[in-house]
């Protein structure tokens, strides 16, 4: 069984073959059935790319809510013919495979894993049918995921400026990766900070100089690497936004960013907030607390503040997984493509997780995650296709149930990552270098 993973060409070959098969099957289904394999979002991208190819704004296409970069990238799809039409899907699928390759490499170099074992865990992503399905249907999440993995790799190998550029680009592409700024900043230079605080605090020793200690810590916190990361990220992000604003003006701001602030998200989705938001949007709330306007508080407290602070110095990948999981779980809107955002980190987390050490727990987690989702999907089906009024209690309880399961899983992830020794990643890396 393990021998398969000793032959990378076999695994990458299988990953590519899986995607190629789905691409060809998708093209066949699109050509022979009125029910299309291609995702509607892909039609939005390609329509926008056609506008861009004609020198017009991608925002001329309704519901195009992405950076113009994506439309530019897909300009070849504006050419006639099925091969060009599939260009974007090929690009997304290749990004998937590239992300898997980066994962496997990083597991070896930063976690000291045997290449075969690394490939086995990378296969959680590479050979995952859900991942291959999403990118071959033409969803751009694969593109984002390869950026996030690259960001993680750049940070782990301390290529700070590259990490900053990737972070700026990722936030420009989809807003949520900004949460990673907190964990990467906290993780970078953790050793230097530890030694710096050790030297500044040990001579003074007594309790009287705590003010000095805080200031010292603060000064120690601002390291050249952190400054370079921040500058690189901010410069990239700002430069991209200014360029896009100059090119496309107000519609760029409106559709890429402001839309996400003003959207109501009244439609049913996995988020625990969805029933409440429907009530609020329809003007039918009674207590007048406007709790939903505070929804960002638990979400950001966890994903930007507490999780990076508590876990950031132990394991960067694990922290990023916990952050993403918290961000998606506590988000005001949640659809199944958001699950890819944390799935990408599983190969880094699983090798040292209690889910594999205690198979019973691992299976319970997997089953509960799938079952609670299936319960929601069934209620959603009853609503959308059978016309039953399943908002309450069906969808309401199902989304709260799914939320509870996710919180429990997040608790396990947090505990697992918290059990890792502080410098696990650094140590391995150091070892790797010596060897």
């Amino acid at each position, binding site marked *: 069984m393990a021998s398969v993973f000793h032959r990378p060409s076999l695994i990458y070959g299988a990953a590519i073959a899986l995607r190629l098969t789905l691409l060809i099957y998708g093209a066949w289904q699109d050509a022979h059935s009125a029910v299309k394999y291609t995702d509607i979002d892909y039609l939005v991208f390609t329509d926008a790319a056609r506008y861009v190819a004609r020198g017009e704004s991608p925002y001329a296409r309704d519901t195009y809510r992405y950076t113009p970069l994506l439309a530019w990238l897909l300009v070849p799809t504006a050419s006639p013919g099925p091969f060009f039409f599939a260009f974007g899907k090929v690009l997304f699928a290749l990004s998937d495979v590239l992300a898997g390759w980066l994962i496997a490499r990083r597991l070896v170099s930063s976690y000291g894993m045997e290449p075969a074992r690394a490939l086995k865990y990378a296969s959680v992503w590479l050979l995952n049918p859900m991942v291959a399905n999403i990118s071959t249907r033409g969803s751009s999440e694969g593109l984002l995921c390869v950026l996030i993995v690259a960001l993680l790799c750049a940070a782990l190998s301390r290529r700070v400026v590259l990490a900053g550029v990737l972070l700026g680009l990722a936030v420009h592409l989809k807003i949520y990766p900004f949460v990673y700024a907190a964990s990467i900043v906290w993780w970078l230079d953790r050793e230097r900070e530890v030694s710096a605080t*050790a030297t500044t605090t040990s001579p003074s020793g007594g309790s009287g100089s705590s003010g000095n200690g805080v200031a010292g810590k603060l000064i120690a916190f601002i390291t050249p690497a952190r400054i370079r990361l921040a500058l690189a990220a901010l410069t990239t992000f700002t430069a991209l936004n200014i360029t896009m604003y100059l090119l496309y003006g107000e519609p760029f701001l409106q559709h890429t960013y402001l839309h996400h602030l003003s959207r109501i998200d009244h439609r049913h989705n996995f988020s625990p907030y969805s029933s409440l938001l429907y009530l609020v949007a*329809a003007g039918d709330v009674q207590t007048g607390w406007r709790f939903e306007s505070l929804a960002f508080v638990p979400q950001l407290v966890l994903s930007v503040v507490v999780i990076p602070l508590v876990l950031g110095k132990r394991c960067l990948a694990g922290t990023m997984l916990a952050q993403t999981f918290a961000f998606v779980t506590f988000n005001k809107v949640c659809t199944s493509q958001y699950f890819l955002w944390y799935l990408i980190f599983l190969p880094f987390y699983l090798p040292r997780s209690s889910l594999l050490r205690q198979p019973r727990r691992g299976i319970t987690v997997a089953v509960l995650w799938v079952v609670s989702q299936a319960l929601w999907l069934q209620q959603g089906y009853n609503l959308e296709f059978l016309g039953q009024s399943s908002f*309450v209690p069906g969808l309401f309880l199902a989304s709260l149930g799914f939320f509870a399961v996710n919180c429990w899983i997040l608790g396990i992830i947090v505990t697992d990552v918290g059990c890792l020794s502080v410098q696990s990643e650094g140590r391995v890396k150091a070892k790797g270098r010596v060897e």
Partner: protein
Amino acid sequence: MRRRITLLQHASTPYDPTQAHVSPDALSLRTLDAAREDRTTFALDEIPSELQKALQSCYQFHVRWASERPAGAPAPFASRVSSGLHVLFTPGEGDGDGAALCQTLKQVFGDEVDCVSPEASFITPPILSTRFAASASAQFYTRLPSLGSLAAYIERSVCSSSSDPDNCRAQAEALRSADSLDINYDSISHALTVSGFWASAPQGGWTEEIAKPVRKGTDQIEVGLLGAEPAKEPEEIKMGGLLGVVGNDDQLKPTLFSFPARHHGLPDEATYSVSSPPPTGLHPTMTITLPQASLHRPPAPPDATCALHTYLTLPSTIFGDKYQLSTTDPLFLSSHNLAALRAVAGETDLEAPDWSVSRWGSTWLLELATPDPTSEEWNVTVPLHLRYLKPSESGIRSAAVPWPVVFWACTAEDGTKMGVNPFDRANLGWDGLFGPRTMFYQLHPAPQPGAPLVEELEVPVLRLENEGLFQGKVIELATVAVISLGFVWVLWKLGLVVRGSGGGADAKKREKRGKAE
């Protein structure tokens, strides 16, 4: 005020000269079985001042109303609109007060007319046609099952100052049973015409005495007893019968005339029916069923090209996906028996809930695919989507969708002038989407006996009980409680991690570093 009464008899209906008797003062009708159009033309100073004001702010203004009861539409009255109230207008130059128009519509047709202002409530149809009297630039629709409000308004505001109040009231009352109603005004003629149409006579036929007008000179009543006859040219309608002006003519005079017509009738068997097969869910499919008789090419000139079309009038609760429907994918189109989406206007936002949509809805012109005439029955399907509606106590809200109109459109020979038709009807919403020389052949809607020409869809919404377990407050508090619990749980787990490091991470780190060094 001029009134024109047209009584249209079917060729097979028996007629006896004593059924229309002319005297110096009146024309009496007795048990006359006929369809009837009653058209009254007012000068501006003959109508209430608030109406005058509203009309003067318009360049042109048209109302088209059709009953929810199925009714015949014999030529030359063959054209149809979806049941309900359609308002089409072009604002005039200058600063007309838009809100005043909506105010007037509410006054005249009742408070259920959900109109705030033309800017906020009307949609702008894409006009292709540039005919002499250009099509209106703004369009409004609302469901309106009855003309009761209009009849009451006329009795209240018009008849009180009328020269013949009793006759005025009788005419207003008669509108309550009309099958369709047209109101037209344009700023060139400065005249307002109101036409009611009754597809069939009341029980026992038309029996009434039409008195000569009280005010001689300005007022006139013209009566025609007509029947359609076979025309020589396929684009023409030929009519023959008797005409007379009440009080002027001592007998009805025979007449025979023909004219090119925009709208033509089709045989009674050329029908269609509309259904939404359950379960409709949030994505109902409108199904238009056409029997074989509806699929024959209409009797247009042989060199004309004809295509079957449907024109959907969709209230804001329901909409089509314009990207889905405008596709050129032959698989999608043939799976629905559609040929192409020809025009769309109005609220086509794919995400907005109904309560955030201010305009009344949308209109869709679709060209339909047609099979070889040998096939038995033909189903055309239009995939539609429902908007989110506000929560309700039952968990269900109703969305009413009027049946679309279905018709053949054929290109006519160059030079055909449709405007000379004394019964011409334009500004129906869909006619302006075709070239000015197009001829239309209308199919007849045929619902189940007793059923209206409106599909009532059940829309699932959030069920909000006033008492009991699932009140709004419970949803709100339970959401807050569960999210807070989840939040605290994760924080607690994080707290355990911090405590588990034993006296702070730093101590351990230092210890380890010391060892390493």
